């Protein structure tokens, strides 16, 4: 397989000038890094013909903080504090991905209490993340009320996190060998109260946005991503599932206690924006289902199996671990040279990076307004693309 490298300059060759006053001319327009759809700072260069998109060139790199390089100077415990700055909406799942890889490499066996609490936290975060996505999608499409509804409900999950973890957004909770803190005695009760509240709220989301004729018009049959392309681009998570590929690591290679819970992998049929919308809405319900099954019997046990301050040394070798975050498969690759408690090299396979390139496939031919819907339905978190 040969790879052709093209620089941005080459991609941005000026379009041919109009040869007569009546013919049209294509033009480039910068969408971002400062643009409402950038949701942070993502630069998208659009080649437009009137309002129709001819070409999409994503230019990531505006939030690059060199997290992978920083990891080389940090012990495995400290790396956890960097992971939640990547995809801040699935901070706990990012924590877990590193913790799981390190545990696997170091041969640490966790107990079922730790795994249950991790699973519960991850699913709570998935609900929180999808709720935020729903609100932001509404805002991108011009329905501002959805945004504040979702923030209202996120807040309740945020409070549970805050009580347990002490942080609301960038949480360092899941550690190699266990958890930072034990859950509070009323954790289960609070979560149950949340679920009782959240279930009707998701129905309310449906009544506010999903059934709306305008929203359906904006999403249905827009930006179709065929299953073949989705797989070829390495899309994961709700994006690939919406294209009809039932690939969910929680089912395919269960981790945590997902094998004990019963839940469905939601798949779409077509791969349009509406399918991606629908898959996420249903995933919120499935997450509630998982939590409901696990919340009543959290096993007793320690919340940390290693010593709190133990230096973790990995044997020489290459280790890879992955799990399903709210946006797809987060892979953690650790190359350890066997001496010291820092990795020699570290790489994150972030779901957003691969999902982002789907826009280059699906957006051409659609209009600017559709681009908003398409990118919003991909649910990108920009810091995770750049790391």
């Amino acid at each position, binding site marked *: 397989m040969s790879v052709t490298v093209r620089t941005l300059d080459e991609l941005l060759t000026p379009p041919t000038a109009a040869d007569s006053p009546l013919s049209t001319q294509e033009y480039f327009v910068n969408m971002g890094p400062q643009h409402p759809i950038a949701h942070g700072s993502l630069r998208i260069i659009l080649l437009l013909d009137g309002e129709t998109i001819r070409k999409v060139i994503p230019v990531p790199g505006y939030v690059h903080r060199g997290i992978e390089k920083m990891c080389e100077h940090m012990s495995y415990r400290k790396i956890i504090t960097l992971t939640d700055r990547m995809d801040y909406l699935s901070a706990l799942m990012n924590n877990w991905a590193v913790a799981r890889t390190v545990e696997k490499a170091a041969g640490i066996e966790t107990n079922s209490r730790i795994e249950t609490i991790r699973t519960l936290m991850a699913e709570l975060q998935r609900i929180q993340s999808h709720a935020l996505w729903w609100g932001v999608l509404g805002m991108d499409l011009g329905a501002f*009320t959805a945004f504040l509804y979702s923030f209202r409900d996120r807040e309740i999950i945020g409070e549970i996190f805050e009580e347990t973890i002490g942080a609301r957004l960038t949480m360092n909770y899941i550690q190699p060998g266990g958890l930072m803190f034990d859950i509070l005695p009323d954790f289960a009760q609070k979560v149950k109260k949340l679920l009782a509240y959240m279930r009707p709220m998701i129905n309310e989301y449906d009544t506010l946005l999903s059934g709306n004729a305008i929203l359906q018009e*904006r999403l249905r049959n827009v930006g179709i991503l065929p299953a073949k392309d989705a797989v070829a681009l390495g899309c994961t998570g709700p994006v690939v599932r919406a294209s009809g590929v039932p690939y969910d690591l929680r089912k395919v290679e269960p981790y945590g206690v997902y094998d004990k819970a019963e839940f469905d992998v939601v798949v779409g049929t077509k791969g349009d924006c509406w399918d991606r919308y629908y898959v996420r809405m249903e995933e919120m319900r499935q997450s509630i289902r998982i939590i409901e099954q696990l919340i009543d019997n959290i096993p007793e046990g320690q919340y940390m199996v290693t010593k709190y301050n133990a230096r973790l040394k990995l044997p020489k070798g290459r280790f890879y671990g992955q799990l399903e975050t709210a946006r797809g498969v987060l892979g953690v690759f650790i190359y350890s040279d066997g001496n010291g408690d820092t990795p020699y090299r570290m790489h994150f396979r972030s779901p957003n990076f691969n999902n982002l390139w789907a826009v280059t496939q699906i957006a051409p031919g659609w209009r600017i307004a559709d681009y*908003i819907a398409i990118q919003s339905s991909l649910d990108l978190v920009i810091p995770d693309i750049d790391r």
Partner: protein
Amino acid sequence: MTLAWLKIMAVVGQPTWEVVTVADRASASLESRWYVAVAYMIVALVAVAAMVVALGMGLIYGERKIAAHFQCRMGPMRVGYHGILQSVADTIKLLLKEDIVPARADRVLHLLAPFLTLVVTILILGVIPYSPLMQLADVSIGVLYLTALSGLSVLGLLLGGWSSNNKWSLLGGMRAAAQVISYEITATLALLVVTMFSGTLTLSGIVQSQAQGWWVWRAHGVGVLSMALFIVAATAEINRTPFDIPEGESELTGGFHTEYSGLRFAFFFLAEFINMFVVSAITVTLFLGGWMPFRIGDWESFNNLMGLIPPSLWFFGKSAVMVFVMMWFRWTFPRMRVDQLMRLEWKILLPLGFCNLVVAAVVILSKWYFFPV
């Protein structure tokens, strides 16, 4: 107590609704005392200016509060009691802000655009019948005047988008032009129905023709449909959600007013909010009886009671309801796409409007409506 009420009602009786505009008064005294005419003119100017300011501030505050309560939050709370002075503070802020003109922008057009937009709005405010005694001028071609001016309003948006030297603004300006011109047709078709029923173009005449019942239900289904058409088309004409495509803040980053700041931006903003009132006022005037009180057939005492409420209150009350409906739209609906918007107009609303017009003509010719006209 009952006796007192009966006496008041006997005095009120059947009001005559005679319209005396400010322009009428001025021209009546022009021959004998010219200074009185001048005084009337000054009063009219001040009244319109005050109206613009009060409406602008009030509507912005109202929108923020209503939006806040739709969205489970409080809205402005800090400046004054429940934030009632927030709009004043915002105005001062906008006044003090730097007025930025982008490099290589067309300075003259860039300056002209917000003024054009606001001037159109103010010109419409002058002919709206607020009450029998509160109308600046009763133009004999009222409905035509409204249509002409709302067609003019697109100029401001287009100029703003063109002169900013910004691709997003240009896209917004083009969208605005396409949208406003298209929806003008449906709005006019809806207005024509009422004109046909009332047989007059003057706005006060249209209001007076609704003494026996408002056109929205007096004209059977035709009235309801034309009002619905008008509300949809008017919402599109003033660029409010779900038709805020020219602004499209998440797509075009503000569209035609991306490059505006300070007071020029405030003018666009002011025009947008006052337009909302203007459109509501036109809807009320044409379909909901203007300043006419609500009456039910021969319920004498009920009708008398309703007659006690001053006409101006009726007018502003009805307009407030319509404004609320528009805000309700905005905080519920997502935004449409450009081609969907055009499809809605040319393939759905326009044929509906024409059919409605034909049916209305048949209804009128066959004298099939309720109440004598």
